[in-house]
């Protein structure tokens, strides 16, 4: 441990200047005294020392790995890779999955790893295939080397900044042709996938019950569809076993809740990761490669090459399914966001009124504060046909975690995500240029608000620099809540924004 010296006298000297500056910050007659900057609470020394040691160790490992890679290229990719074969023979632990997944997440893929498509000849300009900032239809970019290059804001696995927006489904050249997407943060996604799965199961059970009842009573049964207290419209079951799903709302007709993507188009982390690696990094997974081979997938988005190198970059088997399992296992172990009320007494008071106002003006009807998760086990290898690799999202990996509701072993967990995981029409002003598959242009999944504070600018395309802008741009089904906000006086609006700005993540030490 390195030694350090303290300078208490100097800190004291600078205090008056700071207090003077902060003293001017009391507009609107907010009379509460401002906490001196030096009085802000931080964790105790033992905790800080422990966090610090962890951060320094992590940095030393990264230094070592990248230096090895500089000497012998490929070392880093190797350290960041667990294949299916590794899973079968080495039985890596959950912690291994976290460490390796972490490396993979920030690994800058290179042309020699299969990054991009259509590798051009070695030469000053052509050695690296060009980045394509505006996506070319469903073929995507590549627009990035590493996952972390669009998920860095507010800390590791964070959101994207405004410059990092993805320009989806464009013509490959013009930003205006594209559907703009601001990358969301990735914390707490394990519980989100599981919540969606439980909700899908609840909806399926509702349909099954209606079908049974209709058969038993030989009558038409209109069955409201409710999952975790969220209404998804209704279905009508007829005695002949048919289901009329015209009344279904906010979810696809198959009643599978898809919580990932701004539009809610993917139901699993695995599918989301596989899609992102292709769209942003031009990496084709082994699964897709084999699907191209057996003709079960349209090869057009991937390229025109032979099945074993469909993207014509002279690299085959770019992403082993074990690598997807690794990234899923890593993401499922990430911490959950936390609510960090401000420490200043005046701001804290606003926070409290803002929290109740959030419910009162109708924000909470879509941004549902808490959903309860019954089963915290996520199989990172699900869908591979291989042995399960189970992550307990309420326990494994980085804290803080979703909290148990009761102190018994069968307790549900409280996922404070501020979303109903349902799609809503947000009006023409926010609508995408076109529908995304079966999802109408104006529909978006209720964006979970947890961890919001560090993710400005807001909304699906990052068009809103401030919380006020974001609220004011809500339309469609959210128009009433928006109008209720705009009808408030400024101190009341401020309280709501204070509450929202407190939806944050736990501060952690890093040595970048």
């Amino acid at each position, binding site marked *: 441990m390195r030694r350090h010296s303290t300078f208490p006298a100097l*800190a004291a000297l600078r205090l008056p200047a700071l207090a003077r500056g902060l003293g001017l910050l009391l507009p609107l007659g907010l009379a509460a005294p401002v906490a001196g900057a030096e009085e802000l609470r931080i964790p105790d020394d033992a905790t800080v020392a422990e966090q610090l040691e962890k951060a320094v160790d992590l940095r030393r490992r990264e230094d070592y790995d990248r230096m090895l890679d500089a*000497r012998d290229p490929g070392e880093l990719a190797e350290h960041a890779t667990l294949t299916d074969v590794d899973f079968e023979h080495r039985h890596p632990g959950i912690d291994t999955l976290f460490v390796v997944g972490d490396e993979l997440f920030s690994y800058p893929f290179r042309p020699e790893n299969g990054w991009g498509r259509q590798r051009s000849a070695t030469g000053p300009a052509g050695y690296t295939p060009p980045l394509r900032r505006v996506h070319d239809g469903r073929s995507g970019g590549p627009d990035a080397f590493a996952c972390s290059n669009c998920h860095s804001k507010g800390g590791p696995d964070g959101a994207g900044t405004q410059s990092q927006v993805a320009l989806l489904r464009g013509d490959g050249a013009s930003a205006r042709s594209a559907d703009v997407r601001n990358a969301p943060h990735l914390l707490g996604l394990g519980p989100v996938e599981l919540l969606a799965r439980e909700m899908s199961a609840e909806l399926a059970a509702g349909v099954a019950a209606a079908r049974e009842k209709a058969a038993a009573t030989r009558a038409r049964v209109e069955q409201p569809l409710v999952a975790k207290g969220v209404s998804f419209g209704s279905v009508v079951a007829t005695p002949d076993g048919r289901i009329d799903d015209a009344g279904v709302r906010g979810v696809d007709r198959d009643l599978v809740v898809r919580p990932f993507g701004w539009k809610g188009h993917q139901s699993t982390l695995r599918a989301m990761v596989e899609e992102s690696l292709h769209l942003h990094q031009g990496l084709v997974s082994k699964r897709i490669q084999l699907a191209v081979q057996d003709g079960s997938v349209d090869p057009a988005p991937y390229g025109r090459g032979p099945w074993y190198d469909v993207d014509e970059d002279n690299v085959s088997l770019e992403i082993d399914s074990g690598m997807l399992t690794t990234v899923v296992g890593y993401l499922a172990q990430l911490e959950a966001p936390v609510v960090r009320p401000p420490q200043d007494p005046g701001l804290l008071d606003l926070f409290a009124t803002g929290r109740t106002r959030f419910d009162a003006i109708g924000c909470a009807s879509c941004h549902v504060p808490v959903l309860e998760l019954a089963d915290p086990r996520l199989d990172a290898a699900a869908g591979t046909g291989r042995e399960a690799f189970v992550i307990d999202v309420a326990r494994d990996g980085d804290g803080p975690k979703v909290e148990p509701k009761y102190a018994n072993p069968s307790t549900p967990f409280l996922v404070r995500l501020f979303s109903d995981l349902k799609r809503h029409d947000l009006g023409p002003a926010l609508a995408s240029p076109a529908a995304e598959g079966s999802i109408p242009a104006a529909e978006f999944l209720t964006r979970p608000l947890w961890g919001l504070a560090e993710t400005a600018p807001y909304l699906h395309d990052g068009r809103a620099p401030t919380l006020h802008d974001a609220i004011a741009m809500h339309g469609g089904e959210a128009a009433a809540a928006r109008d209720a906000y705009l009808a408030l006086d400024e101190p009341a609006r401020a309280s709501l924004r204070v509450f929202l700005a407190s939806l944050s993540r736990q501060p952690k030490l890093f040595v970048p």
Partner: protein
Amino acid sequence: MRKRRRSTMLAALVAAAMVAGCGRREAEVRAPDSWPAACMPRPRADALGLDAAREALRDAARRHERRVREAAFPGSTLRDVRARLEGAPGSGPCAADVAEAGAILFEHEFSFADGLGSREAANSPVGPFRRVHEGAFGGPETISCASCHWVGGPNGAGAETDNAYLSGDGDRPGSGDARNPQALVAPGVVEALAREISRDLQRQRDDLVREAGGAARERRLSSKGVDFGVLRVDAKGQVDASGLEGVDPDLVVKPFGWKGSHATLATFSTEALQVHLGVQSDALVQAGPGDASGRGPDPADPDADGKKDEFPAPLLSALTLHLALLELPVVEPLVQDRALPPAASALLAPTPTSFVDDFARGRGRFHALGCANCHTPRMVLEDPLLRVEGFPPVDLAREMRAPALQRDAAAGGYPVWVFSDFKRHDMGPANAAHHLQGGVESRLYLTPRLWGMADSAPYLHDGRAPGIDHAIAGHDGEGAASRAAYEALAPEEKGELRVYLMSLRRAPRVVVP
């Protein structure tokens, strides 16, 4: 062609404004000659020590409070910063306070109420942001400086996703010049070095003209061991700059920007605030309406967003001072001498390994291949005083964050390992830009400083190189010979050079991102 002229004009206008601004302000409010006597430099705690960790957590807590307060009272952050910067000469804030205020500005997320963007952008049907710049006016494409300077830690580089597309048509990335945000490594030292080189070159020019005394003469100009070509003077006393290499005829070295288009942090920040955030500093507004600033009906609000006085001079100075006092990077071969436990159950523990030998051989290759011809490893700064408008001169050696300048009597000053000759070079047709930037010819680029490069991937001006091999492969023109020499090396020899380059690192600091 029109666009070319525009971007040239921006640089000229901004420079003119800075000069004009300086003169005007000096006449009105003279900056005090010295900082208040009670001012102490910032404590230089071990950047990986417990104190630094506590400070990082306190900093994060302050940032969170500031963000919440800004949410409650829009504009409060900038009001706070302005208040901090006030104070009568002699009793005003210390350099450390000013730099701290500048750090807040660097990470501040601007809102429309703060002056973000222009009226045109705010009313645009495609949203307020413009991912591709439109001419010299720029974006905006983001809301804070920190948003594109994060790779390797705060004030770092940008990823390829953060590339700016300069002087474009406002729509197609291909119409502009892709520029990868550079890491802000010890920019104060860079400005001071450039100023000394400029001073040397101009002195040599003046000497030449004086000594010529009506005869035709020529001499080679050089400074800090770097040759800048030949300057001629004819019998009429006319100076002929056509034989100069890597520097403009005015002999002002411009070390900022990939093309070397700005001499000072202040002009560089002025342009960056405008083109990336649409925030108009006093200096920009004083340059008058034009393509770069806008042509709104009110000359005090050229971008017509209804916000005047978006970024007054003291704010620009604070931002400049924050950047100027950022620490030096280190050259440090990795020695893995501590027994680290395995990171996870199935992984091997990092073995004790020394990269010192590879480092040493790599250093030899760096020189043998000719890399060091342009990427000049060491320069010696003579005078560590930096002048920032509105404030007394700052002693970088005293005020910088550690690692700071250290005087070496034998070297006659403050040696720094910067790995650049501060000159522009022809990087060949493969790297040619579409547009002129600051009047710099399309194939010319300033030798990028390699210090701290281990923490600044991806590489090259357009960020197209994810690794060192790709970066070297991108060298063309004057760099082609060294590239070819590198490519001819055996694999393990290449590895040694890469180890050497990866030893040029930022000094690790504990932070809360």
